């Protein structure tokens, strides 16, 4: 049995706008999403902003009811059997909310341990080992309001693991963390994977997904786009070569002309440090470079790099064509 099964899941948000002339607005956040997560798997759910990742997680953690389709978590229906699921899953979201600021980390953990029915005998040892796992031992008596973002995030993870859940849902656990803090969180996640926990992770950082996830599903605009191992997703663009051109201001007509150069599969423009970088996916290898440079005469071009496609390139291609 799969740990998580999602079949044609749908969710529509209805809200009312305006005070006097009430208008109803509808957002179709999920429009039929299907995927499965095996027990013990670290599964990544990727997609651009508003894709419906958080909505999916909320439905699976029983906080939201689906409008259509079905879901099973450990064989239970999140809409009808929330109690069974709540006992067995942990939910951690990114950002610094979700903690009692005026209490210490220890008080926070003790309170949630009682809410999650951690047996009294195990409580103390469990909290100590979790503080150790997330590297907060020694600072647990300080008030959370004095914590850095990274410390809060790690405390969140400890909170989510208090009742030793079978499945852990991590919604952007590294959002807003500095590189070192993010790496520490990734290490924690990797060690949980090694312990055999089933984990559903969402992130906007492709290297993170590449490093951690065994399988990935990409969704966009509430629709399923692709699924597979990071290697499989990369294979979709493996026949391509990525060429990065450092430029300084390229106008839209020039971009259009570049797109029509023979052999170009896609072009995306990114801002990095001071420069604008054109990321060109080529079907014919590096031979395309002279043709590109020809179209760019008149614009100053800096470094030109040729490299293998990464998961991010695969993602951009998948989401761009979705």
């Amino acid at each position, binding site marked *: 049995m799969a740990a998580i099964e999602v079949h044609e899941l749908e*969710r529509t*948000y*209805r809200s009312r706008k305006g005070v006097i002339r009430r208008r109803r607005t509808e957002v179709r956040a999920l429009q039929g999403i299907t995927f499965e997560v095996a027990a013990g798997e670290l599964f990544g759910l990727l997609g651009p902003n508003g894709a419906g990742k958080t909505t999916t997680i*909320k439905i699976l*953690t*029983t*906080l*939201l*009811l689906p409008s259509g389709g079905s879901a099973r978590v450990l064989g239970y229906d999140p809409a009808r059997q929330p*109690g069974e699921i*709540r*006992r067995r899953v942990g*939910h951690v979201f990114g*950002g610094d*909310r*979700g*903690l*009692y*600021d*005026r*209490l210490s980390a220890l*008080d926070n953990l*003790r*309170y*949630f341990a*009682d*809410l*999650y*029915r951690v047996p*009294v005998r195990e409580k103390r040892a469990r909290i100590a080992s979790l503080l150790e796992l997330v590297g907060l031992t020694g600072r647990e008596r300080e008030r959370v309001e004095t914590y850095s973002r990274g410390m809060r995030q790690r405390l969140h993870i400890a*909170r989510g693991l208090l*009742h030793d859940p079978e499945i852990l849902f991590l919604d952007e656990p590294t959002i807003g963390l500095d590189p070192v803090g993010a790496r520490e969180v990734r290490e924690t996640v990797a060690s949980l994977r090694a312990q055999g926990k089933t984990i559903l992770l969402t992130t906007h950082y492709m290297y993170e997904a590449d490093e951690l996830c065994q399988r990935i599903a990409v969704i966009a605009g509430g629709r399923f786009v692709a699924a597979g191992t990071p290697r499989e997703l990369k294979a979709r663009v493996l026949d391509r070569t990525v060429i990065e051109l450092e430029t300084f201001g390229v106008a839209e007509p020039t971009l259009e002309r570049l797109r029509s150069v023979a052999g170009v599969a896609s072009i995306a423009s990114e801002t990095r440090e001071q420069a604008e970088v054109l990321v060109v996916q080529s079907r014919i290898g590096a031979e395309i470079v002279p043709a590109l440079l020809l179209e760019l005469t008149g614009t100053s071009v800096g470094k030109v790099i040729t490299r293998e496609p990464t998961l991010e390139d695969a993602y951009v291609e998948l989401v761009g064509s979705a």
Partner: protein
Amino acid sequence: MIRAFASGMWIHVVQFSRNPFDLTGVVIWPIVYASIAYYLLDSKDNPRLLLAASLGASVMLMWSLVVIGSSNALENQRWLGTLELLVAAPVPFAAVIAPITVASGVVGGYALVATLAWGTLLFDVPLVIVHPLAFALAVPCCVLAIGMLGLVMASTFVLYRAAFSLGIALQYPVWIATGLLVPLSVLPTFVGRIGWFLGPYWGYRAIREAALGPSPWPAIGMCLVVSATYLVVGTACLRAFVHVARSRGTLKLT
């Protein structure tokens, strides 16, 4: 579940006590209410009436603290982003919310004692209590009855995001319907009938009759009956309203 309850009460009392603003209020309000009881109801020559007025003022304060305290606490959960986590906990939601309202009730119980003490200290309100033992029992019963009515109201705060303003708005009708503000005899009869269903009415009667006679026991009994009813109703409402919030997707919104 009992552990979750105890732990919850402790957490909310600590969280409350670490907010200097709330703390100041708890010190100041009893003095204000004691003064209101003294000056507003011109009863200086009638010691019985004076004591009754002080008791009424202190129960009013207790009710206000419970409504404001628990609506504030619930709104806080939204701001802190903990409301979803509380809903996602495997214990029944009522076991998470009831400690909040009862904790406010305990703060209210303290305020009651403080109001009476200030009344005695500042205005020589005669603190002659006919049934001291029953009085000692009537106070916690009143806390319970008021706290449990707070639970029923708290369930609506799960649904409506403007919990705090709603809480403020709910203070006054209860003051009137329970006869705390004006004697029920001057109001239309149906208002008094409404009071019968309200915990503060029985809580106030229990306390007043313990202090001034005759027998407080029927009112204390009624306190327990309405508390138990509120617990059942509140639990059912919470369950229903959480379901509505899950279907509307409003749990995380502030």
